[in-house]
């Protein structure tokens, strides 16, 4: 008898939970008049879009900008398929992709130098600059030990980005490489940075914003990846960061893009470590 | 583990000994047993005669099975059990702190209520006891001897490598008896060995038990009074954990001294 009572109470409890849940759900589906803006794509652009969105969201009650990473290719295919309002890319759009978007609108939101970073012990041991050829040799597996280029007698730990990412594409294009002998493939810029800093004899490449601290950037062919050098065009590994849209922006999307392109937006670009587009 | 250490590090005590009267194989002396706080056996005294069959009868829950499990310390496997008193086997107290319960069990074999052969082959089932006790014997010999002793040899001699569970219930139980014989015990305990069997299988087992008493001392717990009357030489009647009456089977069944025994035997309760 007692057991039955308990069971009965549990049935009632379960039904109660279900009821509450469905009421909640019903409440949720009502439109609260908030305009959604979805931004997705390159993780290099992510800090810019992210920090801008935070500031933008706090100023606008009726607009909510959601930002997610995923990579340049993902960002571009998202606007091809219409799954996001804005696609971020850290590489130029390919012709095959351009063909699929009739009304492509391109915003250059900033400029990035692709910096080569090495582990602190390597930097301290005197590897503060590399030539393009040395980088190519390291990435193609011809140089295996730091002592071959004047560093400590330790094996080089080569870190790269995932093959589908925009940064990988830009790097391989700029270096003229087709294949690498990397020891670790990382999904995002910050992953590369962490992998390089936690190992003692590693090398990797990241967006300029991700350098500094434990991950010192080396100069390439004698040119430091600094804001001034990139702006002046001295640094060879540089690329534009884009917002791609399918058709001219309107409404909330336009407001957000305008904010990013405004002087305050460009200040944020500089704050997170990139070079403003203007 | 540390308890065990301390225990073992105590001064080695000399095993207590007692000369049993001739013809008596085991003697239970003021034996008490508790499951947690319930007392299941209340100061039982009993003599088990050599090469005789002793039956223990009584209503359900009277402690028959508990008592028989007490005779080879199978009760040790239940953690809440506490015992008091002595059980003498050939002059050694099996409940003595220095006695090894594993050795006791080798000398006092047991057959259970439900046939419980291991899921091995028939031969492996029988050889198992020899193996774990490190007995240096020929496997084929032991298997043949035990199966013959348990009157199973003719039925299974061509399929010794088959799984024991493919045997019928009665065969399984005889296999269990054969298995118990393999370790060369002196006493065999049987806990309602026929309760799960049909009458024909029961008759075979009863014949077998009768056969066994030539070499072993047998104790059998049974629910079936006819069976007790048929096979046993001595009968013990238990009720609520106490041994009410113990004596010659013919005497117990024809002329019970106690009122309660008479009631049970004539079927007025139980």
């Amino acid at each position, binding site marked *: 008898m007692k057991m039955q009572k308990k069971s009965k109470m549990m049935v009632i409890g379960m039904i109660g939970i279900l009821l509450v*849940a469905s009421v909640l*759900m019903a409440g949720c589906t009502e439109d609260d008049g908030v305009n959604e803006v979805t931004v997705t794509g390159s993780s290099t652009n992510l800090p810019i879009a992210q920090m801008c969105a935070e500031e933008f969201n706090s100023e606008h009650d009726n607009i909510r900008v959601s930002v997610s*990473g995923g990579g340049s290719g993902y960002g571009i295919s998202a606007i091809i398929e219409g799954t996001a309002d804005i696609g971020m890319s850290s590489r130029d759009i390919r012709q095959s992709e351009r063909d699929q978007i009739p009304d492509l609108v391109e915003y250059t939101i900033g400029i990035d130098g692709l910096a080569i970073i090495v582990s602190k012990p390597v930097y301290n041991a005197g590897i503060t600059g590399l030539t393009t050829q040395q980088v190519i040799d390291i990435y193609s597996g011809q140089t295996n030990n730091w002592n071959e280029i004047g560093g400590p007698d330790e094996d080089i730990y080569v870190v790269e980005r995932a093959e589908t990412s925009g940064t990988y594409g830009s790097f391989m294009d700029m270096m003229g490489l087709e294949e690498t002998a990397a020891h670790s493939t990382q999904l995002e810029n910050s992953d590369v940075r962490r992998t390089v800093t936690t190992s003692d004899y590693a090398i990797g490449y990241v967006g300029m914003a991700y350098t500094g601290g434990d991950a010192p950037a080396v100069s390439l062919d004698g040119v430091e990846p600094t804001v001034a050098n990139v702006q002046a065009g001295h640094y060879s590994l540089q690329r534009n960061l884009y917002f791609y849209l399918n058709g001219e922006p309107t409404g909330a999307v336009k407001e957000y893009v305008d904010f990013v392109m405004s002087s305050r937006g460009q200040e944020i670009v500089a704050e997170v470590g990139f070079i403003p587009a203007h | 583990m540390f308890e065990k*250490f301390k225990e073992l590090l105590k001064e080695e005590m000399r095993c207590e000994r007692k000369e049993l009267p001739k013809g008596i194989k085991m003697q239970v002396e003021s034996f008490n047993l508790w499951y947690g706080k319930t007392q299941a056996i209340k100061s039982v005294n009993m003599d088990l005669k050599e090469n005789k069959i002793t039956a223990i009868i009584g209503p359900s829950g009277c402690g028959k099975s508990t008592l028989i499990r007490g005779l080879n310390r199978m009760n040790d496997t239940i953690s809440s059990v506490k015992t008091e008193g002595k059980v003498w086997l050939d002059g050694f107290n099996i409940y003595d702190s220095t006695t090894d319960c594993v050795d006791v069990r080798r000398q006092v074999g047991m057959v259970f209520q439900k046939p419980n052969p291991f899921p091995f082959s028939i031969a492996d089932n029988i050889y198992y006891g020899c193996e774990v006790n490190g007995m240096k014997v020929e496997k084929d010999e032991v298997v043949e001897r035990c199966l013959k002793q348990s009157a199973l040899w003719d039925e299974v001699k061509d399929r010794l490598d088959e799984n024991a569970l493919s045997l019928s219930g009665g065969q399984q139980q005889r296999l269990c008896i054969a298995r118990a014989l393999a370790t060369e015990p002196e006493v065999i305990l049987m806990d309602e060995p026929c309760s799960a069997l049909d009458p024909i299988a029961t008759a075979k087992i009863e014949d077998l038990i009768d056969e066994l008493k030539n070499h072993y001392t047998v104790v059998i717990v049974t629910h079936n009074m006819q069976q007790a009357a048929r096979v046993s030489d001595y009968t013990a009647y238990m009720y609520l954990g106490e041994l009410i009456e113990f004596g010659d089977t013919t005497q117990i069944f024809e002329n019970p001294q106690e009122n309660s025994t008479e009631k049970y035997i004539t079927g007025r309760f139980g």
Partner: protein
Amino acid sequence: MNIRKLISLWIFTVSTVVAILGFWALATRMDVEYWMFFVALTLISASYYLSGIYHHMTEKDMNGVFMLFYASIVLMVAAFSFYLPEILDMRQWEINARIPNFFFYSLSMLFLGIFSSYLSFRPFYNFKKEGAQMGAYYMLYITMIFTLIPLFVILFNIVYRGAGGITWEFLTEDIISMGERGGVYPAILGTLALILVTAVIVLPLGVGTAIYLAEYARKGLAVRVIRTAVNILQGTPSIVHGLFGYAFFVLILFDGQKCLLAGALTLAILTLPIVIRSAEEALNAVPGDLRDASLALGASKWQTIKKVVLPPSLPGILTGTVLGLGRAAGETAPIMFTAVYFSGAGTPSSLLRPIQALPYHLLSLYRLIGYRDVDLQAWATALLLLIIVLGVNVSAIIIREKYRQRF
């Protein structure tokens, strides 16, 4: 005092100390010099030699042989250790490692200690089979301890490093500055919403299927096929569910929009087999005679199920469901392509909007460690996630223990 037992105890103590030292050295990468290893070796082998002399007089056969064998192993290891270089460069065999010899020494000390203490029980029991039993038990204690060590290390680290980050602000504020400041409020709500919607979808489906399978379906080929399919689905890696959820729910059903509903549907498929199986088990645990009794009294089949079969099996069904949901709450792979954004999604407001969820938030924060100052936040998120998931599981276990029914 018995000398035999004293010797055993002595060997046991020495070996245990050696084993603990070895483990400690391994865990802290303490430099173990070769002389430390030698001292341990000498101590243990001397003790054995002693016990060998003593036992040789009483135990004629196996003892002497066993001592000789043991001593020869010890000597071989000792001789070998002279040839061990300071750092063993495995790269000469194209293996990517350079192993310092302290590793070998501490590992040998660990195993030597465990093995000797294992053997020390044999003289203890005068080389009878109880000695082997005690030794085996001892090895089992050790495996239990070694099983618990990593698990304790994990729990300790999360609690120790994360507890400081769990503040009121952390629980109630939005994610600010890529997780550097603020809290995880939207992610908590997102995870809860995800579980809730998943439950609403999976409960009727799973329990209904289980009732059909257990009560109505004839046991035939079809049921066997279904059961196999459910089994396979239960073992399917969660990333495959994520793949399916992305390609089907997100791309086809929701027009490319990641959203709460897509994530919940994916998680519902993930938990469906768990719910079906546990519900079926609970239903099958109700003995058949109960059903027969009810039917014999003139009840219809549905009445029997409703009044006789379901009530006692409800706790089991609920336990299984809650356990499934606990698993769903901690999953990252199925939701990362279907439902979640790192930030900006806000508190869940609609079934068709993206959300934030704790597991994915932890992944994002992990990615940012080093670049942004999010260490504490990441550990706190891990702790919070652990608390939520374990809380769900604990409630399942409580339901099970409290309403457990025996037939």
